[in-house]
């Protein structure tokens, strides 16, 4: 099928990359790519009366790797929440599926495909565990994936930046991306997680990291510069300090301001220099949980002004889920709050992650306010090409709830119904803006948030997120009539939950909401070509001899673990 010709005929095309909003037209596919036209022998897929969009692009989800797997391992009960048993599928040539908030790799691939998603970014790869991440990626069918190595607490990075050595930092990043087959620069609680090595944290931008004597502000500033020095396809991707604490919105804005004055430098069409992830967790007002309220307006007022920033929402979905982050001290803090089981994975020289189950209970005021904040971020956003939909899967909710969030964003009535169901409705309304927001997003804006926007932010706009000729043939077809949208918002959710059809790289992999093929997934990674930096290489060799417990020669991910690579080459001149 991948080599065959297909024509998706007569649907309402929504493609923000070409500013097409609901025009009736065709999408021609050949050899896995979108083309201008195909021969008359092409297989016709009739999409009359349906919406046609590019495959979804998820900018931030935790779907593969050590902490995701710790979550799976330590939560057998999550399997009981799996929902519908897929007996027919298990027997007819599909792998067994398991898990709700932390689905198995097979279910992850199948569920994304069912929602018409074609690309997913694994948001935090501890470098030493990168072979594990790639093992899981190649066991995840259909979807193309990439992974961001975590760098904000890496000892090399902190040592170089303390000495103000941006070039050495960049050379180290280039080496690490190649070794881990990684995609870009992820920063999680810069400095704070390093402090967690001694059981401490950095909550403030100017807190000093013990021993390393560097501040989160200096780490963010240095990595911003190093990222642009290299000209990577994606910008620095930040989870700021002081996550999930009341009053953190001021620190958030202060962190975002660091991006002012830094210019994007790359050949991939990326315009931002900083991606601020799961902003919901960073937009909290009030001094404590007692007078907790939304800081979404203040944060978005700033984001709307600064075009060098992109964000994703991190919407709370009011489910029982599993939190997991490379913000080790935060997970310890959260475990102190809910006293559920706690896993911690301190990683030598690099990072520390934690895992704690969490119930976003609609009867709890704080959870409801978090739910509202996530939606407010999107509703206050002026530029939907810089605002992306995520749940920070599985932290604020599983990715399988994206369609529900789309419903809430597109229907004031659906939001009000949820607000009405809250035990503490009045308090929630008083602490948030949501009740007063009339805005309902359009399908075009949803496509920006889930397709064109994230693709551009990742520097992948030539390949993913659109339907222009030359792009990869990821095409989602949804049971929605653009000309007469259903008055019942539930139909929006169900249409996006189960795509009527999903074509991945030119191959039909989902039909009527069910998976019909395993696709030919690719692993995307960035290879930086630059002259070798002898000092950095010597530092690396020395650290592996003295401090690491694995040999340098066994550290880099072997090629066979990423069997279908899509390598993006970046050339850096010295």
């Amino acid at each position, binding site marked *: 099928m991948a080599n065959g010709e297909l024509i998706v005929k007569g649907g309402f095309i929504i493609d923000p990359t070409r500013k097409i909003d609901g025009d009736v037209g065709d999408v021609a596919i050949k050899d896995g790519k979108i083309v201008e036209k195909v021969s008359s022998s092409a297989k016709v897929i009739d999409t009359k009366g349906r919406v046609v969009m590019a495959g979804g692009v998820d900018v931030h989800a935790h779907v593969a790797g050590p902490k995701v*797997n710790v979550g799976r*391992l330590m939560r057998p009960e999550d399997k009981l929440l799996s929902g519908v048993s897929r007996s027919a599928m298990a027997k007819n040539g599909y792998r067994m599926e398991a898990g709700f908030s932390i689905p198995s790799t097979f279910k992850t691939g199948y569920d994304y495909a069912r929602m018409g998603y074609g690309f997913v970014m694994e948001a935090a790869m501890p470098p030493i565990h990168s072979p594990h991440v790639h093992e899981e990626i190649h066991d995840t069918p259909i979807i193309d994936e990439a992974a961001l190595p975590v760098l904000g607490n890496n000892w090399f990075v902190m040592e170089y930046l303390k000495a103000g050595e941006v070039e050495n930092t960049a050379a180290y990043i280039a080496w690490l991306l190649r070794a881990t087959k990684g995609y870009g620069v992820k920063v999680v609680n810069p400095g704070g997680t390093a402090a967690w*090595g001694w059981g401490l944290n950095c909550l403030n931008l100017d807190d000093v990291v013990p021993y390393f004597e560097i501040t989160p502000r200096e780490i963010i500033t240095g990595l911003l510069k190093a990222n642009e020095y290299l000209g990577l396809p994606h910008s620095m991707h930040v989870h700021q300090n002081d996550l999930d604490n009341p009053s953190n919105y001021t620190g958030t804005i202060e962190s975002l301001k660091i991006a002012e004055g830094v210019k994007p430098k790359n050949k991939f069409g990326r315009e931002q220099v900083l991606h601020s992830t799961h902003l919901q967790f960073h937009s909290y007002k009030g001094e404590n949980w007692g007078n907790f309220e939304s800081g979404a307006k203040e944060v978005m007022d700033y984001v709307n002004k600064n075009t060098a920033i992109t964000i994703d929402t991190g919407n709370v979905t009011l489910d029982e889920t599993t939190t997991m982050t490379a913000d080790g001290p935060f997970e310890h803090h959260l475990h102190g709050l809910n006293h559920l089981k706690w896993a911690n994975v301190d990683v030598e020289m690099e990072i520390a992650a934690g895992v704690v189950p969490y119930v976003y209970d609609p009867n709890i005021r704080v959870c409801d306010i978090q739910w509202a904040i996530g939606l407010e971020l999107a509703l206050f956003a002026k530029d939907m090409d810089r605002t992306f939909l995520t749940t920070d899967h599985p932290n604020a909710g599983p990715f399988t709830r994206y369609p529900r969030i789309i419903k809430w964003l597109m229907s004031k009535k659906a939001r009000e119904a949820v607000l009405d169901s809250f035990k503490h409705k009045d308090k929630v309304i008083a602490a948030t803006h949501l009740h007063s927001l009339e805005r309902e997003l359009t399908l075009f804006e949803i496509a920006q948030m889930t397709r064109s926007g994230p693709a551009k932010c990742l520097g992948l706009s030539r390949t993913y997120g659109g339907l222009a000729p030359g792009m990869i043939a990821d095409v989602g077809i949804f049971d929605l009539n653009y000309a007469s949208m259903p008055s019942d918002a539930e139909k929006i959710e169900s249409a996006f939950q189960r795509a009527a059809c999903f074509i991945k790289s030119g191959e039909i992999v989902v039909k009527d909401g069910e998976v019909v093929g395993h696709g030919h997934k690719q692993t995307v990674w960035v290879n930086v070509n630059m002259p070798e930096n002898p000092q950095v290489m010597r530092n690396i060799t020395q650290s592996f001899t003295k*401090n690491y*417990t694995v040999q340098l020669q066994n550290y880099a991910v072997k090629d066979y673990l990423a*069997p*279908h690579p899509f390598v993006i080459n970046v050339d850096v001149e010295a």
Partner: protein
Amino acid sequence: MPKLITGVGCPYCGSSCDDIEVIVSDDETKILEVHNACIIGSNLFLHANDPTRPKLPRMRQPDGSMKEIPYDEAIDWMAKTMLAAKKPLIYGFGSTNCEGMSAVARISEKSGAVLDNCATICHSPSFLAIFDNGYPSCTLGKAKNRADVVVFWGCNPMHAHPRHTSRYSIFPRGYFTQKGQMQRTALCVDPRETDTAKLADNHLMLDQGHDYELFDAFRTVLRGYDIPEVVAGIPREKIRESVEIMKKAQFCMIFFGMGCTHTDGRNHNIDHAISLTRDLNNHTKCSIMAMRGHYNIAGPGQVWSWQFGFPYCIDLSKGTHAHMNPGETISIDLAMRDEVDCFVNVGTDAGAHFPIQVVQHLKKHPFITIDPNFCMASEIADLHIPVRIAGVDEPGVVYRMDNVPIQFKAVLKGLPGVPSDEELFDRVYERMCELSNCQPIWPAAKEHRRYPHNTNPAVS
């Protein structure tokens, strides 16, 4: 000329040392010397030279003798046996690579098998405690670079993990521990005076089987309450002193082993140990780690967690979803209730490790052993299929006791015609698909398999 290969991973214990140096013959068929490894590890490498290593599958004959048969015949027999069985049990995997564990999962789904690993008879109680209480742990490099207090509770690395203390826990000079042993205080809690206990600064020789009480006393003291004069045979003052040492540590590391998981209390001991770790984190930094036995026994826990959501005793016989219920779906319980009608032993020796009653039950049904060497399980099997030795003549990913993936190399070429676990399982799976007339499911990674697959026009 002999070749020196460095950075070799050792296929023995859960320390999974990857700094072994091996000198092999020019034609890469013989290991001449092994450097850096402990004596057990060295011997595992040198064993590969044994000229009597099995090179062909052996099938039990009606007269009780074993007869060599071609691989295709063995694969066919195994495929048919697996398909015919209502509930086969596939067990082992402590000593093979993750590629094999991933490949066997396809066979297990196809045949509706129960998939279990050696954890079932060693760290299964640890899993139960982790399900209840989490796992605040770290990588071994954290212990090396930071830990100034190291506790060995119910474990004896000096014998079971010979290089553990020199690479990770007591002797190494790390980033913040540049004085090595001088800078570390080692506590050992063990009813015996083991070599680890002799090495420790403090040995708490508790009454055997009273670990739970002693954990309880530690937590009680840590929370500022009084305890009886003697708990589990240890005087109050000694307990207070030990708790004080742990509390005042900059980084406290607790290692525990079979002495906790397989004495009275079992999973409850580990549960308490994890709670103690959590409590200590209110005062300082503390981590805990299970001393996993084999070099890749952490592997199946990882691979099957991402494939099925459970680390061990996974019942796939329902066909629709994986089901884990320790006590019901554990190998020993299943066999004792005579619930399985086919047994496959992979990369371990159930013949040597299982209780005799269990082996007697298993022996009533087809018994297949997949192992590079002769062992008790191979000698009582109906079919013994030799494979390559993961880590010696087959490369692959291995998970160390701290769940860090290590990419092991092959140092020898491998016996001609002898497949790896992965290749064997893929061929069995393919045969099963042929026999049942359905399409095999290969993930993208398998699209360019190294060996030609059978071509049956019926399923082309």
